């Protein structure tokens, strides 16, 4: 086996096979595992996917939401055990691979992304 194949085989054990198909502009709910005082629970985080980065085991998505008038962005390492679940709630219609322009928008209407219906949830 060559170097590439050996590294892939090591990563394969950690790569999740049950991830949904996530597109840029989708609204997702990410279940984040959190440890609090010895107890573990899953905390949901909901927002719009504005970027995808890297590939394979390093793949991440950036999820943005506006919370109490403050923009919040979290980067999730998709294959991390800390990301418990990802559910696509709504498919968005966008024309960019990175939706960083949403950061400059103010107001509920301006940050809205049109829904598209040709992709299944």
């Amino acid at each position, binding site marked *: 086996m060559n170097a590439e194949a*050996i590294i892939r085989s090591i*990563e394969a054990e950690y790569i999740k096979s049950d991830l949904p198909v996530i597109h840029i502009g989708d609204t997702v709910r990410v279940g984040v595992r959190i440890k609090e005082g010895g107890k573990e629970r899953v905390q949901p985080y909901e927002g719009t996917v504005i970027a995808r980065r890297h590939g394979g085991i390093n793949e991440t998505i950036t999820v943005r939401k506006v919370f109490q008038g403050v923009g919040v962005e979290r980067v999730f390492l998709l294959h991390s*055990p800390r990301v418990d679940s990802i559910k696509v709630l709504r498919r968005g219609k966008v024309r960019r691979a990175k939706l960083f322009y949403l950061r400059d928008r103010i107001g509920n209407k301006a940050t809205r992304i049109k829904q598209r219906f040709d992709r299944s949830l």
Partner: protein
Amino acid sequence: MSVGILGTKLGMTQIFDRETGVAIPVTVVQAGPCTVTQIKTKQTDGYEALQLGYESVKPKALSKPELGHLEKAGASPLRHLKEYRLSDVSAYELGQEIKADIFSAGQLVDVSGLTIGRGFAGYQKRHNFRRGLMSHGSKSHRLPGSTGPGTTPGRIFPGKKMAGRYGGTQVTIRKLEVVRIDTEQNVLLIRGSVPGKPGTLLNIRPANIVGQAA
């Protein structure tokens, strides 16, 4: 003093801790299998050591004396030979295979290898000098600045940091943790980075901890 192993850097990736979910950056290293090509003892050589060979090659890649030396141990043609000094070599015999299983998960190791060669590198890359202004009429973009006083002493002191060859030197990274071992494929996962690019020859041995008898 204990026996180490020769290996090849394959590349880097990250794995996850199953319990905490923390991502661990790891270097994947092909470690061995190495063949014992010579056993040096107090009687014959004045000290005790083990010589290991690694990476089998075609016979035409080696000289006749090298082939003859390896034939004595009954080993196939090997490119790299490396000696490890031991306090007792009686447990080893000629032609014996040393594999990655001499290490265990959680063990600390020292890893030596050649760093990436950067050729003739300037002040910024080689010594982390600050650069000059790139604009506003400045012409000292990546120049060194002053190299010392004037008429007295009238010379530049030895050891002054200047541009020159950078990289391509042997470096040891100490006390790296072995995260996982694949004994079937002789693959080690070592936490953190090691010298060189993928494909570089590495010398991996149990960590030398100061003040602790090995």
